[in-house]
């Protein structure tokens, strides 16, 4: 319960910051993808189920506000969250390489999917330009933000885990 509420707050906050603060701090019209960091980290820390639900709702937020059709971002974020959840078995809190690699990979997949469905299908064939000017800069910027954001998320995860374990002990 506590985890759900905190997750909702984190998702909404990062969605709001992504379009306000980080749009002001953009480099070459590219801003980092905070929602993806949140979704992938949640999936990695708690498993497929959490990942896909977090992804679905994050995507839904994007859809309602930004997209003319509802459902596209939901599907993309949901699958990325689910994919990150599959790595839950090899998740160790001390390890930073795996989440970094996962977030980088997810962001590239996200960028490519957006390009393929929203640009390629409308006949924008210059894939090199879009990769070099949107996808890769976004990925790099997202990585930089991950370095700061991931430890914070990990700290929240550990605190929640501690509380949950205590409660379980009490219950037993």
């Amino acid at each position, binding site marked *: 319960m506590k985890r759900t509420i905190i997750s909702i707050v984190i998702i909404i906050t990062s969605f709001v910051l992504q379009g306000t603060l980080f749009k002001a701090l953009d480099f070459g019209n590219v801003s980092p993808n905070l929602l993806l960091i949140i979704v992938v980290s949640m999936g990695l820390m708690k498993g497929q189920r959490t990942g896909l639900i977090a992804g679905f709702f994050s995507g839904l937020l994007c859809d309602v506000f*930004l997209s003319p059709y509802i459902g596209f*971002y*939901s599907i993309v974020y949901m699958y990325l969250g689910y994919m990150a959840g599959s790595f839950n078995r090899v998740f160790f809190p001390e390890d930073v390489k795996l989440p970094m690699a996962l977030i980088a990979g997810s962001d590239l997949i996200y960028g490519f999917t957006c390009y393929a469905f929203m640009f390629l299908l409308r006949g924008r064939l210059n894939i090199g330009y879009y990769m070099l000017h949107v996808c890769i800069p976004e990925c790099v910027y997202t990585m930089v933000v991950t370095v700061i954001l991931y430890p914070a998320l990990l700290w929240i995860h550990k605190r929640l885990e501690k509380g949950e374990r205590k409660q379980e002990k009490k219950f037993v």
Partner: protein
Amino acid sequence: MSPVIKKKGEKFTLPSKYLLFILTIICSIMLVVTYVTDIFDKPLSYAVNYIIVPYQKGISAIGSRLSAKKDELVMIADLIEENEALKAKVSELEDENTRLMQDKYELNNLRALFELDAAYEGYKKTGARVIYHDASNWFSNFIINKGSEDGIELNMNVVAGNGLVGYVSMVGPNWSRVTSIISDNTNVSGTVLYSSENLIVSGSLELINQGVISYSQLLDSKETVGEGDKVVTSNISDKYLPGILIGYIQTIENDSNNLTKSGLLIPAVNFENIEEVLIILDQKMNITDKDIEEAEKLE
């Protein structure tokens, strides 16, 4: 054994594989439904109205206040100096103003003479603040802090300064989404001001990084269009009111079919740091089914 079968005393949970499958189907259905109709728009726009929009407003208010404070501090020293210079300028300008007033009077007379309606200035407008930019890096749409409660309706035109920004593509109770003309998936029908040649202006992600957008399908058989010509919205557009400035022609190139021309256009609005916009409350009159019925009745 199937993983869905419930064991005694165990809490029932749906395996994530199935959940993923179900949600994928739901999303696909929603995609199709929203592509065909807009029945989800209303409930969803109401839902987010009370959860997220106040949050966005708060944060963007803090942001603009901070940047205003920063500017204030920087400017105080300059202001004292400037004040002196400005005082001298005021008297100079007052003199000029009287002259310009006379000119304007003359201009108005001439306009009336030409039966040119000063339509652009005549539209009813309302100001709004940009509270959220497109979080993805693919489009340049944004959210403003006014909605149906302030009289905003779908497809209303949005301007900033003196140029066209875009149109309202979704309306919530007190927020609405503006689709800008530089977004990759929008097209505007325009007219070159002096030669009245029609063209299509299309937004482009690739070009806007260089500060331009593209136009195409310009006929111009008499070769009257030149670089630097003003392009305004055309009469034949179904969304945009006629005569709103879109931008200035930068380059003209012949297409390979030798019939039409295309090239680049510099938008009149600086989209880089757009903070406040004006929404034109008058809408282009469209013929609806109801109008046709009424017209038939009259006959």
